[in-house]
């Protein structure tokens, strides 16, 4: 895996997050360059959001985080105090969340919530911070920014709120933006607008974007690299074209089979589906988390599974060889 990336904006190595009776993240590694979009894709509960929150050290109570390293440029985030972390959050590393309805404080105006992050990190006056906020609201395509600044979150639609969240995240010109399912709670048409906006801003500002999603459609539109997560592990990762062209892990194949493709999927023929549910991983679990749902599983799958190289910067975590064909597994 591309662990040795000297110019990486973000590099995570062997991240583990556990809760009292559950292992949520089991050895996740990924790296992200300047100007790159890296999608982490997987079902609900696979540990993708927890991985994202680990970077910010915003994990819920009871979570224990460990890793070989979590690096932002050359800074080691693991060793940072809460005070040092707070200085980075909202400034160099920003984050947007899934629920624009509840992620904004109902008691304060849009302007106040946007301005405070700028005041905090840039030590400016309220006036300067509000000017900056108006500038960014305009930049995310909100008309009449001056009026919006005086409004409260409940006076805005879901799409507007998410635009505002994005604008707020960009107040201090971050280098890394972590977006945790930013469009999941929105209408389909609004989703498309928000994705276009994120894409445009990412290009213009040269942002490194870590985008968490469960939607391969979003992966295809946005990402250069993708990491597929399952049961707390990255089961496959690589450049987007490579993953779509030659998915190697049975889980990735199963996921891609669930998506109808125009011209390929025939009417009347059922779409693929993966039987079973995501397992709960207890401490001490070994081997492939997918084996209970996998038609190709053998005894070997219960042993520790190492990462295999499929070439072209493409890695996967399965006992099968890279060129196995569906139905002809050894």
């Amino acid at each position, binding site marked *: 895996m591309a662990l040795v990336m000297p110019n990486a904006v973000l590099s995570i190595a062997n991240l583990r997050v556990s809760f009292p009776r559950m292992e949520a993240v089991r050895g996740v590694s990924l790296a992200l360059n300047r100007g790159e979009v890296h999608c982490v894709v997987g079902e609900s509960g696979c540990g993708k959001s927890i991985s994202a929150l680990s970077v*910010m050290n*915003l994990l819920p109570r009871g979570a224990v985080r460990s890793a070989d390293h979590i690096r932002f440029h050359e800074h080691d985030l693991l060793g940072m105090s809460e005070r040092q972390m*707070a200085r980075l959050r909202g400034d160099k590393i920003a984050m947007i969340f899934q629920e624009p309805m509840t992620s904004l*404080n109902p*008691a304060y105006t849009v302007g106040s919530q946007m301005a405070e*992050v700028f005041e*905090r990190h840039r030590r400016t006056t309220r006036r300067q911070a509000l000017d900056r906020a108006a500038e960014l609201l305009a930049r995310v395509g909100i008309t009449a920014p001056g009026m919006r600044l005086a409004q409260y979150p*409940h006076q805005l639609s879901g799409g507007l709120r998410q635009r505002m969240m994005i604008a707020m995240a960009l107040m201090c010109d971050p280098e890394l933006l972590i977006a945790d399912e930013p469009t999941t709670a929105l209408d389909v048409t609004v989703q498309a607008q928000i994705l276009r906006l994120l894409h445009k801003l990412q290009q213009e500002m040269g942002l490194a974007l870590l985008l968490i999603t469960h939607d391969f459609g979003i992966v295809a539109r946005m990402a250069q690299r993708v990491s597929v997560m399952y049961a707390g592990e990255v089961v496959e990762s690589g450049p987007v074209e490579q993953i779509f062209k030659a998915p190697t892990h049975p889980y990735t194949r199963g996921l891609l089979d669930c998506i109808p493709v125009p011209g390929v999927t025939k009417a009347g023929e059922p779409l693929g589906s993966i039987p079973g549910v995501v397992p709960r991983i207890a401490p001490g679990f070994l081997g492939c988390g997918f084996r209970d749902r996998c038609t190709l599983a053998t005894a070997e799958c219960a042993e520790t599974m190492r990462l295999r190289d499929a070439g072209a910067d493409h890695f996967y975590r399965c006992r099968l060889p890279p060129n196995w064909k569906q139905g002809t597994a050894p």
Partner: protein
Amino acid sequence: MLSFILRRLWLAALVCLTVLVVSFTLTHLSGDLAASIAGPNATAADIAIITKNYGLDRPLVVQFLDWASHAAEGDLGRSYLFHAPVSGLIRDRLPVTLTLGLTGLTIALLIALPLGILAAVREGSAIDRGIMLVALLGQAMPGFWLGLVLIVVFGLDLQWLPISGIDTWQGYIMPGFVLAFSAIPALMRLTRSGMIEALCADYIRTARAKGLSRSMIILKHALRNAAMPVVSITAVQLGFMLGGSVVTESVFALPGLGYLAWESITKNDFPVVQAVVLFLAIIYIVVTLLADMLNALLDPRLRA
């Protein structure tokens, strides 16, 4: 905001009227007023004369309208018991009750809010459990008992504070504490649970993701959202302190409204009862109106 206030004022007037009608009717139904004015040794003729003189033979509606029209002009009638104008009695007693209630409220808020916030921030810790234990003890301790204990310890043994009366401002300290103690457990629990809920909210995670300081997150983002139920219950508690301070006022011999109400009810001193009810209703209404307005200031969603 203006239409919000006007709507509330209109409701307040209706509440006030209802309270007065009910209390008027109840006092007249609770016994023969003329007989109790005349006293135990009165003859039937005496009672008949009193009934006639006080106009008690007229229909209730007429009596009420008569009373209400005088009250509207500031004339609340004369006390049967004190043989003095009721408005004068109220004027003497009201400041005592207001001072006592506000003293109690201030003490209660100064203790309950910081402890409630601290318990929420340290939820599940020894500090939290200790604070909740104090709340439990406070709830279990009756006011008159606490009052007597305070009198024995600080009034008689240590002689730091006067044991009764309000000749100096120190006279308000002990009764203020006793009143505060009755309100502290509820205020503290509500502050704690509101803060715990607010601190779990998504917008707190957003605030942390923005790199805000811990004090900003707790005191600006969480407290404002946790404050609303606390404001509402504070209004109720203040109303309770102002209107229901009978026990405290009698333990510390304070000439307040609560004590006056108790005296006049037992003696069937109807004009005083009616006037006290009127004032207590107005106090309750003003306090809850202020609380609603404060909540509307805190939460923009209520202003619509």
